[in-house]
């Protein structure tokens, strides 16, 4: 369905030296250097899969999405989507995809929302009856009814994002690209949007490529994760694979009346944890301990804790994906 092979993109970037003098200097003698934004990325996505595409800011996610949607031409490497090369035949290729860039809008800024859909209908040559059916379906999932006659510039961010997602789905695309679709949205709207994406994916077997910084999006939606950093692949697999591969982080919650629990417990000295493998937070009487269960087993940890401080209540749980990813981003693998 989607095949990305050895994708690479370089940009030329003008370098300005610091300060006013630097500004003058670069006005007359601009220095430029080549920046590699994406370096040798490969992955495959089968039909109907939701792929979470993640990475820290500046990792090159958006650049990859822009190459996949035919906006940027790769420096080298290929991407093939439904057997088509995005940059070779842009017009026929983009008919089969839907794109949402969370930070921009494809809606007509000055016109009522309904007009944008009318234009899109003509653009994608959607027949009248399937357009009606489609609109009522999208209406139901994304609740557009309340603001469909308002000019787009008067919509709130949440309304606009829902409208944008509806716009990208009007022509029943085979592939949907979502670049940060939940950026800046409140919890309820986020929830609605996730539900809508899941529903459309299930109903139509739409392949979805999703980039986001909200890992709840990934946990709730993605079948698989591709993580990149500094332009290269870091990880490609399912969430459970990610959890098992990158250290079993566990969280220990305990209630204690010991004032400075971290000092009293002295995990670091006793078990020789490295900085990344242990984190202790205390708030009043409740203490949260995150540790790597590959270094020290859960039972050792529990036994030691109970021995060292007076515990009222204690529980252990799997750390969420967020913690794993935080570690990964920091280490840069």
């Amino acid at each position, binding site marked *: 369905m989607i095949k990305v092979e050895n994708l690479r993109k370089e940009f030329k970037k003008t370098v300005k030296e610091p300060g006013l003098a630097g500004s003058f200097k670069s006005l007359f003698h601009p220095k430029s250097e080549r920046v590699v934004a994406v370096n040798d990325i490969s992955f495959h996505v089968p039909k109907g899969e939701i792929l979470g595409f993640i990475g820290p800011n500046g990792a090159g996610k958006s650049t990859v999405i822009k190459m996949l949607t*035919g906006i*940027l*031409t790769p420096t080298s490497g290929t991407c093939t989507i439904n057997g088509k090369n995005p940059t070779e035949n842009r017009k026929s290729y*983009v008919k089969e995809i839907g794109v949402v*860039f969370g930070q*921009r809008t*494809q809606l007509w800024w*000055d*016109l009522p929302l309904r007009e944008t859909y009318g234009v899109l209908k*003509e653009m994608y040559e959607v027949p009248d009856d399937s357009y009606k059916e489609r609109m009522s379906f999208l209406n139901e999932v994304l609740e557009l009814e309340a603001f469909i006659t308002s000019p787009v510039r008067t919509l709130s961010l949440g309304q606009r994002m829902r409208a944008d997602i509806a716009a990208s789905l009007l022509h029943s695309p085979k592939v949907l690209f979502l670049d940060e679709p939940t950026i800046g949205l409140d919890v309820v709207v986020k929830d609605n949007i996730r539900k809508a994406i899941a529903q459309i994916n299930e109903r139509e077997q739409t392949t979805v490529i999703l980039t986001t910084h909200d890992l709840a999006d990934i946990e709730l939606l993605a079948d698989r994760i591709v993580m990149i950093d500094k332009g290269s692949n870091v990880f490609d697999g399912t969430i459970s694979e990610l959890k098992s591969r990158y250290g079993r982080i566990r969280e220990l919650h305990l209630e204690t009346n010991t004032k400075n629990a971290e000092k009293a417990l002295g995990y670091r000295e006793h078990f020789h944890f490295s900085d990344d493998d242990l984190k202790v937070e205390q708030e009043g009487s409740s203490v949260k301990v995150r540790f790597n269960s590959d270094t020290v087993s859960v039972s050792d940890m529990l036994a030691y804790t109970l021995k060292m401080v007076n515990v009222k209540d204690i529980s252990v749980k799997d750390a969420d994906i967020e913690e794993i990813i935080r570690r990964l981003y920091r280490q840069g693998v």
Partner: protein
Amino acid sequence: MTKKLRIYRAFLSAGMQEVSTYRVNWIFYMAGNVMACFVSYFIWKAVFLSGNNNSLNGFTMSQMIVYIFLMFLTSTMTSSGGTYDIGEEIRDGTIAMRMIKPISYNATFLFQELGNKIMTICLLIIPMVIGVEAVRYNFTGEVQFEITNFLIYVVSCVFAYLINFFFNISFGFIAFVIKYLWGANMMKNCIVGFLSGTVIPLSFLPSGLEKICLLLPFASLNYTPVMIYLGIYKGSTLLYYLGLQLFWVLVLWGLSKLIWKISTKHLTVQGG
């Protein structure tokens, strides 16, 4: 073909709706243009009054005044903001949103602007033609309006607009290289204003320079339609200049396509 027309009709009506959404902006813009027109009217009046001759380079004062008003009418009809629009879209990266749609980038601009233009022309052309004819009547004492000249003038304006549009689009793509176009656009407007005869009639130039200017596409923008309206280009001369206009339409259309092809290969999208 009809399918395509239906797509672009949507852009046409969007362009028209934009004018009505930002009415006040449009009114100020037009008022500004009218004022600029009167400024050059007073300047030329002063020039003529200070000289001893009744005519300047073959232009009498009345002809000059008609020329100024006609120039204003023509440049309103044939102006194109493509450079600015493309420059802005490239600067803030919105160009990406047009590229993910199955449509021709240039054609969406063309139809959107045409929508804008239709509104402007509907509202302005009749009062302006009446104004120009009133000035002419005032000086000569007889009605000079000729319907055939006027119709050919309209055709010539359409060509002129297309030339201007494709030239501006092509120029706008320079933004891909220099990222921000405001300065370059100012320079372009200044040069085009001079070469198209908007600032001074081309016949004021030394004859060698005039000949070159007449061949360049810029004379086709404003000077040619005005000469047609005034009935100065007739017969084979008329056909020659209309042919030249058509030639430039085709050349610049081809150029804009070519530049689009090249520049999308080197596109960098700014901002996220």
